[in-house]
């Protein structure tokens, strides 16, 4: 895609030798009995029943305004962790992430409540993302229309627990995509919904990109990466294995996974 070369290249995200380590309580290998747990607590030291998972190991890259960057790699390669670290939601063990404005993860689902109506969830989700009440009121109809929830009857006034999983996923994406983000990160959201909705969301991602933002997309679907991204980062075992234009990286990746 040639458009990127004409723009003045303004970095929006800089990752500098980033390391992320998870600490998991009570997952120490060995006996899981109560006495074993007690002896671990009594045995003073750095590691008391805590296991470390080194999920991202020294990743560096610079993302520029107007880019759509795909993240690929096999399961457990650290893609989602990297996104969370860029969003500032997981603290770095070593290294730093610099960002322009506040990157947001398309992950509004955590704020939504299944027992509430779709209507109230739109408002709650919008507020959770930091929109004002006026902004939500203004975009409410767009969100509902985009999700297509009401195409099969008045579902928006029903509790979300009555939705099918596809419907709920569509509403979540619609709420999250309603806000203009400087840096938007999407974690496999496109895999949900029917074909029609997938096309609509891909279109929305391209739109968000045009609004001078940077979009990160994690997906196992090479086609949706090819359709939306102009640059791809390939992570393997927490390390950046390749970084370049979509076609080049995907070709190598397909060769790698094909074997």
């Amino acid at each position, binding site marked *: 895609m040639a458009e990127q070369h004409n723009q003045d*290249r*303004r*970095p929006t*995200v*800089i*990752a*500098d*030798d980033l390391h992320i*380590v998870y*600490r*998991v*309580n009570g997952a120490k290998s060995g006996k899981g009995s109560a006495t074993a747990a007690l002896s671990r607590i009594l045995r003073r030291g750095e590691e008391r029943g805590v296991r470390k*998972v080194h999920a991202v190991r020294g990743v*560096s890259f*610079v993302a520029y305004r107007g880019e759509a960057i795909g993240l690929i790699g096999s399961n457990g390669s650290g893609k989602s962790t990297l996104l*969370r*670290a860029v*969003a*500032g*939601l*997981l*603290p770095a063990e070593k290294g*730093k*992430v*610099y*960002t*322009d404005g*506040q*990157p*947001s*993860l398309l*992950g*509004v*689902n*955590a*704020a939504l*409540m299944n*027992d*509430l109506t779709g209507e*109230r969830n739109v*408002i*709650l989700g919008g*507020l*959770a*993302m*930091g929109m*004002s009440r006026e902004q939500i009121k203004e975009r409410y109809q767009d969100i509902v229309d985009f999700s297509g929830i009401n195409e099969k009857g008045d579902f928006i006034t029903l509790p979300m627990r009555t939705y099918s999983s596809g419907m709920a996923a569509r509403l979540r994406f619609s709420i999250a995509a309603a806000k203009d983000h400087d840096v938007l990160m999407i974690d496999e959201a496109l895999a949900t919904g029917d074909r029609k909705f997938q096309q609509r969301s891909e279109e929305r991602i391209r739109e968000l990109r045009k609004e001078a933002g940077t979009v990160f997309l994690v997906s196992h679907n090479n086609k949706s990466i090819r359709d939306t991204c102009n*640059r791809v980062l*390939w992570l*393997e075992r927490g390390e*950046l*294995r*390749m*970084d*370049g234009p979509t076609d*080049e*990286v995907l070709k*190598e990746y397909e060769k*790698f996974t094909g*074997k």
Partner: protein
Amino acid sequence: MHDGTVAVTAAASPDAGLTAAELAAKYGLSVSGARPSLVEYVRQLWGRRHFILAFSQAKLTAQYSQAKLGQLWQVATPLLNAAVYFFIFGLILHASRGMSQDVYIPFLVTGVFVFTFTQSSVMSGVRAISGNLGLVRALHFPRASLPISFSLQQLQQLLFSMLVLFAVSIGFGSYPGLSWLLIVPVLVLQFLFNTGLALIVARMGAKTPDLAQLMPFLLRTWMYASGVMFSINNMLAGRPEWIVRVLQVNPVAIYMDLMRFALIDGYGSSHLPPHVWAIALFWAVVFFAGGFVYFWKAEERYGRG
């Protein structure tokens, strides 16, 4: 098969020689996930006030949304609670000692509701971060929004309970008067105290989730020491004065006694310790300010693996 060379994208020439930190400084990028200053933090929190309120109301509504009687449980639950405590302490244990039935029943119900307010704020505070990791790891907002929102939910819950309390008071001959206006400052002070305490335990619970298991025992001990179902004055009559005073300055005991003083006609100021309003204000301010700063100090660490 390991032919994956790292292809670095050709950077524009003027930025080529810069380190990451210099590049970030040049374009005004800031470190992601750094803790804001206290003033900035308060400003951010104020910007999220609508979310805090909406989240607490949503939690409150969601609580009973599957029940057939629905929101009626908001009032029915405290009513049943009061009935159980009356049955055990009023009828079986005769804990009323020196109080007439007309005073004791509102006394007991007030105590139970006021203590429950603090108790449930602390319990939801402990889990405010550790029980909402999904939210903390997905969205950006000042984390103090969560404990504050949960305290607010408990406050709204208490307002429903107050309806029951008013009915009980009137039923036992304490009619609304000017002193009922004192309920407002008492509630405000107790809410500030609860929120501060919730902020403190939220930070501790985020680091040590085991606290949620321990908390019920601590809270129960606290309840029995606070004079919920007996009057500290009457129970400890004949003991040294300082023991009575020490038990009475316990924050929950203070708020409980003030609420009883405001509501119940037969519960006069002789039951209150000296300087009661000053102490009530002191606890509220110290815990709220202290808890807020204590919670903020770990802001960037919440949600870590």
